[in-house]
């Protein structure tokens, strides 16, 4: 058998020397450099950024190790951009700048790296952010699984915006921008060890349009994107952080039939599966209709299936544990009540 001649990442691509510069010039710059991004081109050691007057700075970071790196609906690059953009967006920030750091395994096909980088550039363009600084390290063959990416992001928050769990009140409405679980299910199935295939694509997308659509809508209390642990985990964070109970109506949940069918086969609940393009929002009761109208009108259909899925109430306190705790309850379609608990164990590893 002849050895394929495919160009691959070498240890030298990470040593800061000639090969590193070749990689920057031939792969990163062609995709990340653009006329609207004057900061990157001189390749300074640090990007120097000017905050707009009167805005506050939001800063976040996330690492991406998803396996497999390519899955229906995206790849690790798409995820690395949208994941950080979404963390900024749901904090009320206008995403502006990203850093990108790659950890590559020796032998990783250059063509795949280029595909990842191209996806990152497209996702950044769609989200309206600029990639202004970066880094590449290469580790020996076997010391990593192909490609890992870290991104950090900076965004600008209006002076008068104050979202947070301390703003949540009993009676507030819980909204979800679309059906849950497509990302987690798409990645799980693309691992190929479950014995069946499906057309399910990751919901991976920038949620900034959903946030932007709510500009000027009064009564927004809190937003979060339900990634690892899914919608159920975010709602439990709401209960813990606000000291209030959350009630979810099963019949009101938006549903993707393909995700539901696959979830039933695998014995998992879509409410615990990761989303990468959804928003959970909590708003005052009289704002809910405006939020739903605004979400459903977002171009591209990102909020087409948005729904009010429940409400917040004064806590009846779970009678267990060192101190009584607020909780999340689910009212089933049949009218029964059960807990929608924090998932314990059995987490799917490397989903993002």
């Amino acid at each position, binding site marked *: 058998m002849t050895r394929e001649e495919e160009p691959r990442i070498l240890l030298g691509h990470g040593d800061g020397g000639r090969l590193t510069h070749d990689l920057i010039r031939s792969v990163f710059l062609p995709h990340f450099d653009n006329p609207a991004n004057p900061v990157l081109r001189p390749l300074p050691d640090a990007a120097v950024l000017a905050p707009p007057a009167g805005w506050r700075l939001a800063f976040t970071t996330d690492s991406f190790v998803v396996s497999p790196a390519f899955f229906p609906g995206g790849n690790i690059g798409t995820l690395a951009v949208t994941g950080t953009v979404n963390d900024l967006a749901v904090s009320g920030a206008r995403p502006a700048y990203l850093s990108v750091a790659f950890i590559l395994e020796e032998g990783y096909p250059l063509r795949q790296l280029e595909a990842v980088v191209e996806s990152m550039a497209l996702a950044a363009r769609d989200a309206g952010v600029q990639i202004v600084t970066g880094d590449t390290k290469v580790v020996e063959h076997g010391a990593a699984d192909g490609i890992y990416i870290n991104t950090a992001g900076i965004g600008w928050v209006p002076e008068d915006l104050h979202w947070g769990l301390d703003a949540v009140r009993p009676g507030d409405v819980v909204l979800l921008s679309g059906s849950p679980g497509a990302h987690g299910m798409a990645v799980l199935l693309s691992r190929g*060890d*479950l*014995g*069946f295939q499906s057309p399910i694509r990751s919901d991976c997308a920038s949620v900034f349009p959903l946030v932007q659509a709510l500009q000027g809508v009064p009564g927004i209390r809190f937003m979060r994107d339900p990634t690892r642990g899914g919608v159920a985990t975010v709602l439990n964070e709401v209960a813990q952080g606000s000291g209030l109970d959350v009630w979810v109506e099963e*019949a009101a949940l938006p549903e993707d039939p393909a995700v539901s*069918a696959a979830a*039933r*086969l*695998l*014995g998992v*609940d879509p409410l615990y599966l990761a989303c990468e393009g959804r928003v959970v929002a909590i708003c005052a009761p009289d704002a809910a209709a405006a939020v739903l109208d605004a979400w459903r009108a977002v171009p591209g259909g990102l909020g087409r299936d948005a729904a009010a899925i429940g409400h917040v109430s004064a806590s*009846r*306190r*779970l*009678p*267990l*544990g060192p101190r*009584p705790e607020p*909780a999340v*309850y*689910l009212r*089933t*379609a*049949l*009218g*029964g*009540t*059960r*807990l929608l*608990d924090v998932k*314990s*164990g*059995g987490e799917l590893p490397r989903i993002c």
Partner: protein
Amino acid sequence: MNPPALQATDLPEGARSGGAARAGQDILRPGVDPQLTSALLARINASVSRPHCIMEVCGTHTMAIGQFALRSLLDPRLRLISGPGCPVCVTDQADLDRALQLARQPEVLLATYGDMVRVPGSGGTTLEKERAAGAHVTVIYSPLDAVDLAAAHPTLEVVFLAVGFETTAPATALALDRAKERRIRNFSLISLHKLTVPAVKALLREETTVEGFLCPGHVSTVIGRAAWDFLARDFHRPAVVAGFELIDILPALQQLVAMLEQGEARVVNAYTRAVREEGNPRAQQAVAEHFEPVPAVWRGLGWIPDSGLGLRAEWKDFDAGYRFPGAAGQEPPDGGLGQGQVVSLGGAGGRCRCGDILRGKATPLDCSLFGTYCTPQDPAGPCMVSSEGACAAYYRYERHRLPGQAGGARKL
């Protein structure tokens, strides 16, 4: 190439988790009409004139009942209690210790199902912790994956820790056939397979409040409805074989309650789309060709005769207990069989009530450790360990029903 003795697609539903076997079946039904389910529920509640105690044998039923919040909807005089039908929960600590010991050997790759890696052995360690400390431990979805692992790692000894009831044993048999056909010599297994019928019989030979049984759908696809006839014939208990959807469980309960109300004892098949009268003879044959009934120790229940599946002598080359010194199974105590000798877990002292819970004598809410000293993060007893255990199901879905504590959260 010789045709394999048993195709994966011959396996019953549930034998291959998420497998192709299920895809062709009538399982991807559209949503159930809520009016129909409401009507069924109302009819069940209207038919109850006195208290009844019903045991669901299978852990998957326990989970489904919690997930559908059935206990919050049914007449409180209907007590649904969980049986010994969670394979992880009933795995004895000494058996788990054997697996842990094997996993620590550098040449061994131990393959098993997801929930098993979190069960604590007697020293408090788990397969998950051993993996973090450098042991080769891999979670698999099907026994065939273990054979593939052995083929892919010829320098390692792949040991499959096989747990499960009648449903999973045929898949293990298939894996043995494949390993033999492919002449894979670095594959062996610890068979902790158990049989549900002897366990239910053992429960009924003791004093029990259980009046009727919801019989396991998956297990019955293999053993058949008729395998449960002893319930009516020998113990005068009605039973219904049921599937796992709301639209399976509600009609099954309706029939069961109707029989209990009338003092009737029959064994009814309410899961006819998957369960046949005689079961799946091919799967039964595959099990019989590879395994034989042996005495087995059940966590919480003790030794029960003929309740385990040991490898037959002609398959001993694939028996990890035979291949690895010190890995042989436990021997039953003299004369101890069927005496219900309870093997309790360390740590919880005498207060862990898993034995009572697995016998249907208590519910998790009756245990003083539940939710405080015993949680899924830090389990004291086997029923809290597996996601299909009764305590784990109650903790996950119903711990707000615990009476008489802070906030008076009894009634929702």
